[in-house]
């Protein structure tokens, strides 16, 4: 069994002739929490979709547990996805189902467990995210942070080997952010899973992940442990970590010379 549960080899992907990824290589070691960071529009979420087999690469491959994702048929892909759990940016809870039913959904779909056992599992997962008492609520009655935690309970309902998080901190207050950071780490270690966290929140992420990839303009520009990256003198990493407006990632969208444009009227 390979040390890496997910491997991305020489991956290229793009939409409508525009390349988003240009030969990306990454590996995700079993049991680790790995962050993929980069600016908005750098293709981080797309990477998760490529790992989940929702998109097919133009070149290269994504391997999950030794299997090349884009070569799988429908059954093979569904078998791979049973090893994965994914937390979407805004939770993606089913709005017509209660919190309880949302968490029970994957269990009902993939097992024939009796109702009493499903209840035990659901309550266990909801307890892990601190929302056992909210099991009767509907998704519309939850705050953003609570919805994210319910979605997390649903993502880990079947104890997946890989848990993917798409912008888990977006729009959360500092308390909820701390809770979610803590949960990601605790759940990963308790389940013995591998977590892939797509985010651009540097300080929260550096506090709990084991390894970080920085993606910019379609390539991996830096990688390392949070400590290594904090000390890095690479201009991109420095700009990103310190939140500087201008640098290798320009503040201005590419445009003609401002002075010439003004003179032209």
């Amino acid at each position, binding site marked *: 069994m390979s040390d890496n549960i997910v491997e991305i080899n020489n991956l290229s992907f793009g939409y409508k002739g525009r390349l988003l990824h240009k030969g990306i290589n990454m590996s995700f070691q079993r049991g680790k929490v790995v962050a993929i960071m980069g600016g908005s529009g750098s293709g981080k979420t797309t990477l998760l979709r490529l790992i989940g087999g929702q998109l097919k690469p133009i070149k290269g491959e994504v391997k999950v547990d030794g299997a090349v994702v884009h070569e799988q048929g429908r059954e093979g892909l*569904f*078998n791979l996805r049973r090893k994965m759990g994914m937390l979407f940016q*805004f939770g*993606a809870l*089913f709005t017509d189902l209660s919190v309880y039913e949302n968490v029970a959904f994957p269990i009902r779909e*993939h097992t024939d467990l009796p109702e009493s056992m499903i209840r035990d599992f659901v309550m266990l997962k909801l307890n892990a995210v601190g929302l056992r008492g909210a099991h009767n609520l509907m998704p519309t009655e939850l705050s953003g942070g609570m919805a994210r935690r319910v979605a997390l309970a649903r993502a880990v309902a079947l104890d997946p080997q890989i848990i993917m998080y798409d912008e888990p901190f977006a729009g959360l207050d500092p308390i909820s952010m701390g809770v979610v950071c803590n949960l990601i780490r605790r759940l990963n270690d308790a389940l013995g899973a591998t977590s892939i966290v797509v985010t651009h929140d540097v300080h929260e992420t550096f506090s709990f992940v084991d390894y970080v990839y920085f993606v910019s303009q379609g390539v991996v520009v830096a990688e390392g442990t949070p400590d290594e990256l904090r000390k890095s003198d690479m201009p991109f990493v420095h700009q990103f970590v310190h939140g500087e407006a201008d640098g290798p990632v320009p503040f201005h969208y590419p445009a003609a010379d401002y002075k010439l444009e003004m003179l032209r009227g």
Partner: protein
Amino acid sequence: MFSSLKSTIAKIGHNFIEGIWHLGAGGRLFFYILVYLGDSVRRPSLIVREIYATGVLSLLIILVSAFFVGMVLGLQGYNTLQKYGSSEAIGVLVALSLVRELGPVVTALLFAGRAGTAITAEIGLMRATEQLSAMEMMAVSPVGRVLAPRFLAGVISMPILAALFSMIGVLGGYFVAVPLIGVDSGAFWSQMQASVDFREDIVNGVIKSVVFGIVCTMIALFEGYDAPPTAEGVSRATTRTVVYSSLAVLGLDFILTAFMIKV
């Protein structure tokens, strides 16, 4: 001049190709739904829930409309028939109009407006809020879990709604013709019973309503599933559901009637 002509031709060509593409994508989705129908049948609770959403919740608008349509038929029918001294035939006129044409067609139009738009908006929003993607990532097919039960529910609901429409429509016609105008009640019912043929009229009406049910539900499902994941995308898809369903129902009604009537 030349460039505007060129861009117009290019636009027409683009729309044509887009139309063909949509037709193909719709056909493919229909095929997938058929593949997953077996799974849906094994989970009747999902179908019952959708029958409630599409059928039961459409009942009020359909029954009220049916009663008014029946009353108008009664009034218009009596007005014309009395000129020829055959006002007792009002029951036949109301029943045949409803069972053969108005029942299936008006029900389908109302169904598209009430249930079809609800289906499109719901599925479009599920896509926009990544609920369908979440389902895919949980190794659950959205076609099997979301679309196929709704399709079955629509196809089951439509003939029942059309039958109820015709029944209530006849009662509306009766209400105007017998208590209000004073046509003989016995003549109203007996002429209707003698003239409405089970095979030629009722079965043909049911066939029409099943076809309309398939078409309206399929259009609603496809438009929702294919909707761009934005507020504008969902709103446009909802509008398209009503427009395409209405045109399809009226066009198909002519084609089916042409096959059913032996001229």
